[in-house]
């Protein structure tokens, strides 16, 4: 399957075997620029592994992941990765500002340019007033925002998110979902978002991919690939009552292993 011109990420028959077990049977997937693609599935279906293959942390056993037409061989600054465990993804000895700065230092952005870019990115995620705080002084939701801010500072081609709101309470999760949606719209980001929460996937995504665990030839990893034609911008109350939302939810429910 040849990818279209505005494809950012292309999974070309990506299969992954770990520890003798086939986690993913060949998956074909293209993610276009500006798309928000959510990946759902039961535990062990390989959704995080698929994401990590795109990040370059895991090498596929078969096929390849391509970014802008070139195969991914390792981690790259242009592919930002947001970890679920925000506590361990931030440097606890650096302030919020300095944590974001890490991305710019790595990219060797000149020191004079950094403060401006950091301030802008912190403003975008709503952390402008907390620039000099340490991660330990922040709530979980705010720490996750710092991580997102750092990823934004990388000015990435694509943002990969591994159940980023999984460790947060329901209210914080909803707030961050709306903020992320706004952010993605404003910055025109391309996002691949892994979650175990079906409603979250339908709420945020333009497309949702469902994966199966223990893939076989008859029942491969890729179980479903559906468009989510719900109106934008999405809203926590009205979108979740939309008949199409409910229909899609019903359709995808059993893919989660229920």
């Amino acid at each position: 399957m040849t990818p279209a011109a505005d494809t950012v990420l292309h999974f070309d028959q990506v299969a992954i075997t770990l520890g003798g077990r086939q986690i993913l049977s060949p998956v074909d997937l293209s993610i276009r620029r500006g798309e928000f693609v959510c990946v759902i599935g039961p535990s062990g279906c390989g959704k995080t592994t698929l994401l990590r293959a795109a990040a370059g942390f895991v090498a596929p056993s078969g096929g390849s992941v391509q970014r802008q037409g070139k195969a991914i061989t390792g981690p790259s600054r242009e592919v930002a990765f947001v970890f679920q465990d925000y506590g361990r993804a931030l440097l606890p000895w650096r302030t919020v500002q300095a944590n974001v700065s890490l991305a710019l230092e790595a990219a060797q952005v000149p020191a004079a340019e950094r403060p401006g870019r950091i301030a802008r990115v912190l403003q975008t995620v709503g952390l402008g007033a907390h620039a000099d705080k340490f991660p330990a002084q922040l709530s979980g939701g705010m720490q996750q925002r710092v991580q997102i801010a750092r990823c934004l500072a990388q000015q990435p081609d694509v943002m990969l998110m591994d159940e980023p709101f999984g460790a947060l309470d329901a209210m914080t999760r909803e707030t961050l979902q709306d903020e992320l949606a706004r952010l993605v719209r404003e910055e025109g980001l391309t996002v691949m978002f892994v979650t175990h929460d079906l409603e979250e996937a339908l709420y945020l995504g333009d497309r949702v991919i469902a994966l199966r665990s223990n893939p076989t030839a008859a029942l491969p990893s890729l179980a479903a690939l559906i468009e989510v034609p719900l109106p934008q911008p999405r809203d926590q109350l009205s979108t979740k009552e939309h008949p199409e939302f409910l229909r899609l939810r019903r359709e995808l429910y059993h893919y989660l292993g229920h």
Partner: protein
Amino acid sequence: MNRLSTSMVALGNAAGSVLVLGAFIALWWAASTSGWVNRAFLPTPQATLASLVQGLAGGDLAAYTWATLSRMVTGWVLASALGISLGALIGSSVRAREWIAPTLEFIRPLPASAVMPLAIALFGLSGNMVLAVVAFGAMWPVLLATLHGLANVHTQLREVSRSLELGHFNFVLKIGLPNAMPDILAGMRLSLTVSLIVSVVGEMIASQAGLGQAILLAARSFQASDLFAGIVLLGALGFVSNVLLALAERRLLRWQRS
């Protein structure tokens, strides 16, 4: 309990603490003044105080204290610098660590003063000899702490580093060593204790001007009050240096507190 009674209790405890210490000093006074313990071994508190004041104001005690202090601090700074650099060098390579770490574990229990005869053979009975042994002996806690801290960088931080394409050197500098900071600071505290001890022993053996030599000479000439005055000063050196370091540690590790 309301705040007034909690402060009253705290005050009461502080007063009690002072009282108990006072009681011990009174016991000391009684034992020495009455002759129950030979005054040649246990000078009276007044005699000790007199020696202390006399020695500091008019005599050489101030100079001796300064000599021991500077020896201790210089050796400690050298030891810390060496320990961190070598620790970073060895610790930044998993392979180097595997080959070298067991040897270091063998050296860990070795008394720092044990290399003094070797140092005397190499450098003679000099101030530099003492400094060399201090630096060598005090280096190990910091080196081992640096190694330990570097080895325990969380996988997630390593992945963040790879994702940002930080490079090996910057990983060690910006993530590895700061991550090891709590361990390194604890090692430096231990180093300071070793530094003081080896400085005193060195002064005793190599007849270098300082508190160590002073108390040895006092004992040899049966000047018990001078001896006790020296012990008091050494205790004070140990106490103050520890307190200062603890304060510095608190400041440097303030990011740990939420």
